[in-house]
């Protein structure tokens, strides 16, 4: 399994590296769609990563998908891989044939029932890349399980917005009749999908954190002032060490959550990952910019490819405060003396 993982990692990294010096990011930032980049990823079967082998997947389940998400964060890929991977996975579970075009995913508010012909339009805010998606996987809360609809972008009115990294976060209004067939997602609630999406951001943060760390170490080992490399100064070394700690904590938190998918500790492991990754993101950015100084603050320098994403992603799918309040609420709901047993409980494997 480890050999397969390495092969996959090398293969997708190769693809991402091919686009490093391309104008894909510039295309995104000017409102366009990096068509060729998307094609290469789709045609390589990468969006089907989480599907079983018989459905064209890699048979690695969600952990395989999150490996891609982390790498996409590292390489600042200007495409909604988190949503495309999870959308494809959910369609697979619902038994819906995987469409050709780019997918994105969104969750409609609780208490809203899916409209069928002639109902009110349904407004959903900040849907990643809706303007360029062919279809939107829309999830609705159900009593025991979420329900899913595959909506054509053409049936929606789209208002363009972006996050601080320049990534599309469009407001969408589903027109009456846009929602056709409703599919069941057995065993999966919207709460669970929310958590998976949040874990996707945490994985991207882990990737981008390591890229920022690498850039920072590289810069400290190149830039000289007062007759020596700035990386020789203890003040600089201490900060970069702290930055490395944050990156490793973020990465470990995500990897640990992946081991808990489908276990009874899935939710809180994801909560911990989103909190720790979110906290890491801020510190990683602060230190990266401190070390790079003025040059790193420019649009032209590539540091901002990592840091603008880190700032954007930590606030998406729930920031640290939201996740911490819910986790704290859970812990305060335990019985007296129950904290340690809860922290160490484990379903047998």
């Amino acid at each position, binding site marked *: 399994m480890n050999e397969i993982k390495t092969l996959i990692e090398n293969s997708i990294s190769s693809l991402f590296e091919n686009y490093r010096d391309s104008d894909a990011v510039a295309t995104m930032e000017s409102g366009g769609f990096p068509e060729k980049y998307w094609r290469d990823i789709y045609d390589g079967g990468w969006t089907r990563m989480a599907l079983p082998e018989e459905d064209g997947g890699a048979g690695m389940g969600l952990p395989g998908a999150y490996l891609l998400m982390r790498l996409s964060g590292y390489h600042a890929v200007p495409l909604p891989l988190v949503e495309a991977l999870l959308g494809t996975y959910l369609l697979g579970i619902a038994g819906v044939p995987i469409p050709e075009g780019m997918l994105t995913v969104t969750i409609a508010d609780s208490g809203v029932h899916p409209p069928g012909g002639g109902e009110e339009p349904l407004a959903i805010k900040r849907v990643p890349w809706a303007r360029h998606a062919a279809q939107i996987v829309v999830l609705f809360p159900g009593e025991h399980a979420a329900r899913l609809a595959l909506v054509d972008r053409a049936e929606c009115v789209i208002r363009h917005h972006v996050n601080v990294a320049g990534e599309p976060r469009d407001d969408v209004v589903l027109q009456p009749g846009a929602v056709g067939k409703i599919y069941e997602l057995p065993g999966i609630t919207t709460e669970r999908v929310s958590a998976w999406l949040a874990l996707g951001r945490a994985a991207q943060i882990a990737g981008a954190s390591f890229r920022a760390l690498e850039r920072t170490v590289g810069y400290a080992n190149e830039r000289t002032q007062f007759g020596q490399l700035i990386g020789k100064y203890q003040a600089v070394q*201490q900060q970069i*060490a702290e930055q490395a700690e944050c990156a490793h904590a973020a990465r470990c*938190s995500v*990897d640990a959550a992946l081991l808990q998918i489908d276990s009874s500790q899935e939710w809180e492991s994801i909560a911990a990952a989103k909190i720790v990754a979110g906290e890491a993101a801020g510190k990683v950015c602060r230190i990266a910019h401190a070390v790079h100084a003025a040059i790193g603050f420019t649009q032209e320098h590539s540091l901002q490819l990592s840091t603008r994403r880190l700032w954007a992603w930590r606030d998406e799918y729930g920031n640290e405060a939201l996740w*911490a309040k819910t986790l704290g609420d859970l812990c305060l709901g335990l019985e007296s003396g129950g904290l340690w047993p809860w*922290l*160490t409980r484990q379903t047998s494997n």
Partner: protein
Amino acid sequence: MNFTPIVLTETENALRLEVRKFLDEHGSFLTNSCAIDSWFVPSPEFSRLLGKRGWIGMTWPRQYGGGERSYLERYVVIEELLAAGAPVGAHWFADRQTGPLLLRFGTEEQKSFFLPKMVQGDCYFAIGMSEPNSGSDLASIRTEAKRVDGGWEVTGQKIWTSFALTARYLVLLCRSAPLSNDRKHRHEGMSQFIVDLESEGVTRRPICNLAGEDHFCEVFFDNVFVPENRLLGKEDEGWHQVMAELAFERSGPERFLSNFQLLAEAVDLLRTSSSCESGKQLIGQLIARLMVLRQMSLSVASQLQAGALPVNEASIVKDLGTSFEQDLAECLRMVVAVEPGYDAEERISHLFSSSILKAPSFSLRGGTREILRGILAKGLGLR
């Protein structure tokens, strides 16, 4: 550097319930005064009880009385003891590092002599490294061992030596060759010795810290004879041997569970307090950090099991862990408002008082924060 997480097996987790049952039976040992930093509270009686249960030297070979269990099984046992605030101080250094050190570098005679006694929980060790003029700069130590007939003669002084009064033996790092003027060679010429603290010429004095504990000591060596068979490992290789201990010393759960009892108590109190709502976010943040720290520490334990010496990873666990410990009291006092006091009737006040007063030591002991970050910087390629 990596922190590949692991999932504990059923066998490993089974020990958890055994330890909890044991702690229930011996609950009288879990007092307010050992709740914080319980791995610095010596209790020979408790250590012997643990020894009887086979919970000291768990990973050591059976021929020396060990249990030949895995590092992860040991991990489960010690995290249960630490989270409960159990007084494991007396045998702590022996179990955590001196035993592994002997297994790696000791002679057959040394292993056969010391390990079985350590396993029983009544043979205690202290570690002699720091000196008044050599703290972070450990390589500048001046205590020296001179060759004499049949062994060595040690002269000098150690300080901050925890448990030098409780322990019978000391693992001493000292010069066995003159300190080199050449910076490149300053790590050469040091050796480790096992010193019997009851030897003639040894004087031990306790040093009280501001938290009222006196596990610290000064130890003076006035021409103390150390027999040949108590040189530990190779002559002049002491520095490298010490470095090999660091991954064990720095990565364990004691680096983030020293004041877990404060967190547990605060959570219990918040449940029914008017600050409950405002405390939720803080509790969630602290628990998230604790969960991830535990995963990182478990990962290092599994790497140690595989025979690696992940020194950089251990430094990260220690730095993040001790920062967490130091943040606990500082953050929790904002949602559980208490005037801390040692002699207060409320347990929470006592726990706060202990945590706050002991906090500075968390990031000093076993390598200061600044030194650890310097080591990490080197590992990142900055030096």
